């Protein structure tokens, strides 16, 4: 049996929701209210040595026959490995390598930047009413230091100018790379729709709202057309329809850590 613990269909949580629908796999959905810290309440899943160490921030958890799988891109790679029918991954090793290379860039450059900008815009205002002492006790349950600090920044609404500047630079770099990749090709890797499109779309779907100055019809026309093509897919439509807030593109929680090297 497949179960998915996820929040709103945006960012990391959106990837497995799209892949599960594309592959037409039945699964039980467990909606977790992440800004309400439901994933840290006593009695939530008993995590394993690996899954209690999140490397992509607050991400979804897949459970397949009792085994826990985390890290959104690796969840969708896992679904390909375990359920090879209706494949979203080309057979050629070089195309598989390009999917993994995109994943690395998305996870280490684009996701941290989008998450920082999104948390400042939408999560920080949401946490305003939370009592400081209660937040401190909640944060004790957050396992990773980078993740505790990201929640604290959202609570304090304190984002250094350099971090915002650097995040905008990374988003600009990311959308430029995606725009280039989509020149002359309808999809990111090879000639067909793949996991790379699901990966990138899940992170970019919020950008026309979040950073309209960096992603719009004049600067990134192909990227917008690709976004529209993605949204037309029934699986993507079904995944986005699982939103309970009606505004999935405004749902942000701390994501992966920014690279410590610069």
């Amino acid at each position, binding site marked *: 049996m497949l179960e998915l613990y996820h929040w709103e269909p945006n960012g990391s949580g959106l990837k497995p929701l799209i892949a599960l629908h594309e592959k037409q796999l039945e699964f039980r959905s467990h909606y977790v209210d992440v800004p309400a810290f439901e994933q840290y309440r006593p009695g939530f899943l008993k995590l394993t040595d690996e899954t209690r160490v999140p490397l992509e921030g607050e991400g979804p958890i897949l459970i397949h026959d009792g085994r826990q799988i985390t890290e959104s891109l690796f969840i969708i*790679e*896992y679904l390909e*490995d375990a359920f090879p029918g209706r494949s979203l991954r080309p057979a050629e090793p*070089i195309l598989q390598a390009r999917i993994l*290379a995109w994943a690395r860039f998305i996870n280490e450059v684009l996701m941290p930047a989008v998450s920082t900008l999104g948390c400042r815009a939408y999560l920080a205002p949401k946490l305003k009413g939370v009592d400081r002492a209660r937040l401190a006790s909640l944060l004790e349950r957050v396992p990773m230091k980078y993740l505790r600090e990201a929640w604290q920044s959202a609570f304090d609404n304190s984002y250094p100018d350099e971090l915002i500047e650097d995040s905008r*630079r990374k988003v600009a770099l990311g959308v430029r790379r995606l725009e280039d990749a989509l020149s002359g090709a309808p999809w990111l890797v090879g000639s067909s729709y793949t996991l790379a499109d699901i990966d990138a779309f899940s992170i970019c779907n919020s950008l026309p709202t979040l950073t309209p100055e960096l992603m719009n019809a004049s600067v990134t026309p192909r990227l917008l057309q690709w976004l529209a093509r993605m949204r037309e897919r029934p699986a993507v439509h079904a995944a986005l329809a699982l939103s309970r807030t009606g505004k999935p593109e405004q749902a942000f929680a701390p994501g992966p850590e920014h690279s410590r*090297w610069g």
Partner: protein
Amino acid sequence: MLTIYHWEPNANSGKPILAAYEKGVEFESRYIDMLAFEQHAPEYLKVNPNGTVPAMIHDGVLVPESTVMMEYIDGSFEGPKLRPDDPFERWRMRWWCRYFDQVIGPSISMFGWSFFVGPAMRMRDPEELKARIERIPLKERRIAWSKAIYGTFSAEEMAESGRRIAVGVEQLEAALSERPWVAGNTYSIADIAGFNMLAGLPLMNPQVVNDTLTPHLLEWLRRINERPAIRRSFALGRTELVKRYAHLDRRNAAATGGEHA
């Protein structure tokens, strides 16, 4: 034809080299001297415009990223499997590769650069160094090289790296006390990545990695160190760097143990 551009056979450069030898794939080795900044020279940027090492070219096509290169080698050539068939173990392999790449590896490099690369660099002409740094294509790498060369890693950054190494080592020790290899019952690219990142730790951080605190981790390093492929990999080294791994030889370990006894 397969060509691997690499520096010393450890850390990221060691990953595709060891994976190719384990797979039984012959390749053309091109040594790039990172201390001479050959990775930012125009000839190399033609091969890899990002100016990062290693780089791998297969039949004229660039394969990016050292971890991705290992998956590519396993998927493209005949030979022993370097990725588990079981989907869950394969997931665990990818999880650990990411943990090595994003958390443990950069922390270990910070120590390596701070103690080895930085001091060696500061003996050179300052103007030449400045020019060398300016031509590095990626901003992240420019900052990293500046910090390494001018020794500007802060005490907090170094302490944080030390903390991450300690936590990572503890977690790896726990994993290896439950199973023979990082991903499960089969040797995989997660072991290749882990060895290349961690093999120097018993020397560099002996208070964290030693026979008392981390017996399984050390046994795992020694087992990999005995593989024929690692001998071939080390043979590509041109500096003293790989000699640091002599401590993994069981005969040396026995001698050390005897002295302490």
